[in-house]
């Protein structure tokens, strides 16, 4: 089985975000970048599926600048076999990114294409499903459980007030949610091996986007409120404030 994982390099979730001089991108100075946390569930799923099958090939694909090479090497160190970097500054328009990924994935003819359910930078939550539509493949989004048997996938996704069970057959696209697995950390041996694994970098051109970012802004800081009091004795005062001042009770 040939499995592809699409990966994005994103700022660490603990990073403080500062808006850059252009006002449309963030200031990357001093920001630590990591593989998108949801993509790690996809990487783990791909590696585990190949291990279970005892055969197959896993490929990781990223759209990004050369800085993404390091992120791809992390995936290789976890156990992915080969990497492809589609060199581009990227785009805030999910469809522009989906189109270049779809072209690469179509050429590779994969049985299963995995994504994280969203990237924790732009929160677009859309590239996986768009790629599936462009390739006319079945797609299950935000899978928190997944089983694969006899070429059929059954996956569970969290919905409001329940869990939706979805099914499809391969080839397919699945986007991964937390809960699917516990991603492994790269081993020292894996890190050494990753240096020799193939990483194919090639330039791509993203089509003109129909979503454009006009500006970024930091949300207004919340005003620190007040300490109502100490211990359970402060509860009646809190209740009074919630009823009369905040009017939420």
């Amino acid at each position, binding site marked *: 089985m040939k499995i592809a994982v699409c990966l994005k390099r994103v*700022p660490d*979730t603990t990073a403080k*975000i500062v*808006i850059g001089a252009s006002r449309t991108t*963030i200031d990357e100075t001093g920001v630590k970048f990591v593989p998108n946390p*949801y993509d790690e569930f996809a990487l783990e799923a791909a590696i585990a599926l190949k291990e279970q099958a005892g055969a197959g090939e896993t490929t990781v694909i990223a759209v990004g600048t050369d800085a993404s090479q390091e992120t791809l090497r992390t995936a290789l160190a976890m156990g992915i076999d080969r990497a492809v970097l589609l060199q581009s500054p990227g785009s*805030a*328009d*999910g*469809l522009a990114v989906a189109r270049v990924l779809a072209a690469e994935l179509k050429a590779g003819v994969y049985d299963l294409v995995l994504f994280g359910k969203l990237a*924790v930078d*732009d*929160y*677009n*939550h*859309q590239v996986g*499903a*768009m790629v599936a*539509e*462009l390739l006319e493949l*079945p*797609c299950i*989004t935000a899978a928190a459980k997944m089983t694969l048997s006899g070429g059929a996938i059954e996956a*569970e*996704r*969290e919905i*409001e*007030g*329940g*869990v*939706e*069970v*979805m*099914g*499809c057959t391969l080839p*397919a696209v699945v986007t991964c*949610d*937390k*809960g699917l697995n516990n991603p492994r950390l790269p081993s020292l041996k894996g890190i050494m091996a990753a240096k020799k694994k193939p990483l194919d970098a090639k330039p791509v051109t993203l089509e003109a986007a*129909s*979503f*454009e*970012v*006009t500006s970024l*802004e*930091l*949300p207004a800081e919340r005003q620190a*409120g*007040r*300490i*109502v*009091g100490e*211990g*359970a004795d402060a*509860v*009646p005062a*809190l*209740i009074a404030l*919630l009823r009369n001042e905040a009017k*939420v009770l």
Partner: protein
Amino acid sequence: MKVLAVVEQRDGALRKVSHEILAAARVLADTSGGAVDAIVFGAGAVSGMEQLGGFGADRVLHATHADFALYAPDGASATIASIGAGYGAIVFAATAMGRDLAPRVAARLGVACATDITGLAVEGDVVTVTRPIYAGKVLQHGRLTGATAVVSVRPNTFHPAASGKAGSVTALAVPAFTARVTSKGVKKPDAAVLDVTEATVVVSGGRGLKEPVNFKLLEDLAAAFGNAAVGASRAVVDAGWRDHGEQVGQTGKTVSPQLYIAVGISGAIQHLAGMRTARTIVAINRDKDAPIFKVADYGIVGDLFEVVPRLTEEVRKIRSS
């Protein structure tokens, strides 16, 4: 601008978020001088669809198919795409269904999609949006320049206005489609549980609860409110105390309830990102220097094991009076 509102139903009844979708669609239609169509998917009649006129739908399009008893991604996206080019904007909710469906429709129409938006306007004939990114650490302002603007709106952000107007229900033809993915049903918990993204009140717990079993205190408080959901910090979800579906923060959910009560949560940057848009924030923590107090409107410094039961008792008194 003609606007299509993709409303949601489950088990043959409209979901509450449907009225919010219409409220957002109305913003676009009213500022540009246009009409709103609501599209309802169902295996048959959907309870509440006759009342959609009163919430802003000029027309209700009813798409029926045996597959539409459950969520049918391929059938729904094919149906919307078959009429989508006739609209200046298509509005979804950023729910499990809307997040899945909106990008499919956008890809079929060859246009961009703006997810989880909190602000919406029309400038000329271009839809402009505001959306929190980096889990709310940054607000992104953008323009959708394609022929049709596809957006999903954050729940609890657009407020429904009932007008009492009638809306006519028209049957909509469903095009032939291939069901590449099928829903095998929805597993529901034993008791109905509100989702943290849709609840009016969210009561969240962190490591200060000490043990998973102590979340019973928060469940009791949530039950006293009645319209509340229990949330959790990343620390307790990673420790396996609570389900990921309850996690509030950057690798969990972003919530905007009327009231957010943080119990035993110190307030890590990634958690604050997920709840800073709540209207009112209450923090209960024994550490008076905890960062959570810097964003809370009201704080109580003290032992949560004493404060929370007292709060539950007082809320219960008010709710039963």
